[in-house]
């Protein structure tokens, strides 16, 4: 009996305690989390919570942020969620406990990270979202490329290149992210009423390997296709590989992001074009905006980082 008496006791105590629980709507933060931001002396620490580093885009974003932090005399702490929203909430909480001055958040998902943003709000740590937005919680500034306009640029390029007729396959990014939503919306919106038709639209989660396999499958199902629009370069490069494997050199592939690999592929003629973002600039502006917040200067609620279409004829 003594062996499990402890367990029984714990269970009883916890059950009794759980009964005295507060009513709904009162999710107060633990008292200890309420301390002021950036209390530690020395260089101010800015936290950067990345969705993943398994993607050159976010690595470039991080590098831009690191460089800007060095120039501004700030310490940058980077945490990586490996595309798992639960893991990202945990690492944002860790940044809150570390009492960083500002949190730069590149959310894995727009709905799931709302809670973490609210926790930072309660701890009075300002949050700046990068590249993707969050649905709830107070955000000091949102810094991203104008993805809707970028999707439109890709559509305009294809209309011109294909003489305003043909069938297009669309490879979508991680469902639920604002980047995937906005790029798709901009692209499909600009094609409406044109001679181009989107005959298939499937997620390949911004991933090169999935871009390859999804394209292989779609080519089987829809052999009559003239162009592929991928919502990022990684998927576009996967699609280009699939076309190479299927010996289809008459299909135009347009990517999005303008990563080093993507730009090289445009130069080599593997991609027809890419809508180039400037991830390094997003990271850089993120840190500069954080610096403004630390210095108590006003910041814009929305900062649009420009995009440009890069094709072989229109190299940067």
């Amino acid at each position: 009996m003594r062996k499990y008496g402890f367990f029984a006791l714990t269970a009883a105590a916890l059950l009794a305690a759980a009964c005295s629980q507060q009513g709904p709507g009162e999710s107060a933060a633990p008292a200890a989390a309420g301390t002021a931001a950036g209390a530690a002396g020395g260089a101010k620490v800015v936290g950067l919570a990345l969705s993943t580093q398994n993607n050159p885009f976010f690595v470039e974003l991080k590098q831009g942020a690191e460089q800007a932090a060095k120039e501004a005399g700030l310490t940058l702490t980077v945490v990586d969620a490996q595309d798992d929203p639960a893991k990202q909430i945990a690492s944002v909480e860790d940044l809150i406990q570390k009492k960083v001055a500002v949190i730069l958040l590149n959310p894995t998902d727009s709905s799931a990270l709302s809670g973490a943003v609210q926790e930072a709000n309660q701890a009075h740590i300002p949050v700046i979202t990068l590249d993707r937005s969050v649905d709830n919680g107070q955000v000091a500034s949102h810094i991203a490329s104008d993805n809707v306009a970028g999707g439109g640029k890709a559509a305009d390029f294809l209309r011109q290149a294909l003489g305003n007729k043909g069938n297009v396959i669309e490879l979508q990014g991680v469902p639920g992210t604002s980047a995937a939503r906005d790029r798709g919306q901009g692209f499909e919106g600009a094609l409406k009423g044109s001679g181009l038709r989107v005959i298939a639209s499937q997620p390949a989660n911004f991933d090169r390997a999935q871009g390859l396999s999804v394209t292989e499958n779609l080519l089987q199902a829809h052999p009559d296709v003239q162009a592929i629009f991928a919502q990022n370069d990684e998927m576009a490069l996967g699609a280009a590989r699939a076309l190479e494997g299927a010996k289809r050199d008459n299909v135009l592939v347009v990517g999005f992001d303008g990563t080093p690999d993507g730009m090289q592929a445009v130069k080599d003629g593997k991609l027809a074009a890419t809508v180039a973002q400037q991830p390094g600039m997003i990271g850089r502006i993120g840190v500069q905006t954080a610096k403004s917040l630390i210095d108590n200067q006003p910041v814009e609620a929305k900062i649009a980082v420009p995009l440009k279409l890069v094709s072989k004829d229109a190299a940067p």
Partner: protein
Amino acid sequence: MPAAFSLNGAAAWMQRLGPLIGLLLLSLALSVLSPDFLTTGNLLTVLRQVSINALIAFGMTFVILAGGIDLSVGAILAFTGAIAAGLMAAGHGMALSVLAALGLGLLLGVLNGVLVSWGKVAPFIATLGSMTLLRGLTLSYTAGQPIAVGNGGFALIGNGYLAHLVPNPVIWMFIAFALGGFLLRGTVFGRHVFALGGNEEAARLSGVRINLVKLGVYGLSGLLSAFAGVVLTSRLYSAQATAGSGYELDAIAAVVLGGTSLAGGRGWLVGTLIGALLIGFLNNGLNLLGVSSFYQQVVKGAVILVAVLLDRRK
């Protein structure tokens, strides 16, 4: 309890104390290295972070003790979480949705058990199959999109606090721990789990209905995974189609770090809690210290390997 299934002597004590000493050393090191580590707020935060993994790992402990393995836990978590969110999105109440998710988790676990016992499929293969199947079902049910949950009461399961201080998921973790500990140490079922993992043939000859015990452990694992799914869905205010990928490995790591033998028959639930805390402290501490996330994975992998190597030497 028969002597063959318990740990005896100094060596056995060392084996039990090993994970605890590891946890204490790690906490000590982190307290010295980071001023933000040893605060009430941070420790409660870590407890909440480990709660999901701990809930799954408690169930996994039973399965591993019985000589099996359950790779489908993360997929059950995602599927049941999506069902709970889907039911609420369709206008059903919170109680019904949560109970449906838990019942479904239990059922899916029992089905794993049927495959392993009467079906005589190797646990690794059976649960790999159900993992893949459930991942597919989850993706088709959610159409790959997150299902948002607006129910305020439901949100409290993962986000509320007890007495404005202790996060609710931590409460659920300790309740599951207490009940699980009782089940393992204080019931016939628990003794049969040890007997089955220690020597299946001997257990069968001594009258243990091994197929029923297998249904029990996989059912329990499914139930706890579903509960973790409910808590996570609440915590994220949404069910995610790809939630819980890789969670099976985190749970197995917690069980093994806690000193439970992968061969079955030897181990304890306290160790699993310690193992989950070890992983949680490591994640939290490396973030507080600002260690590059690339090296974080190297450190975590190395810790698991060292722990298992130490276990082998005993």
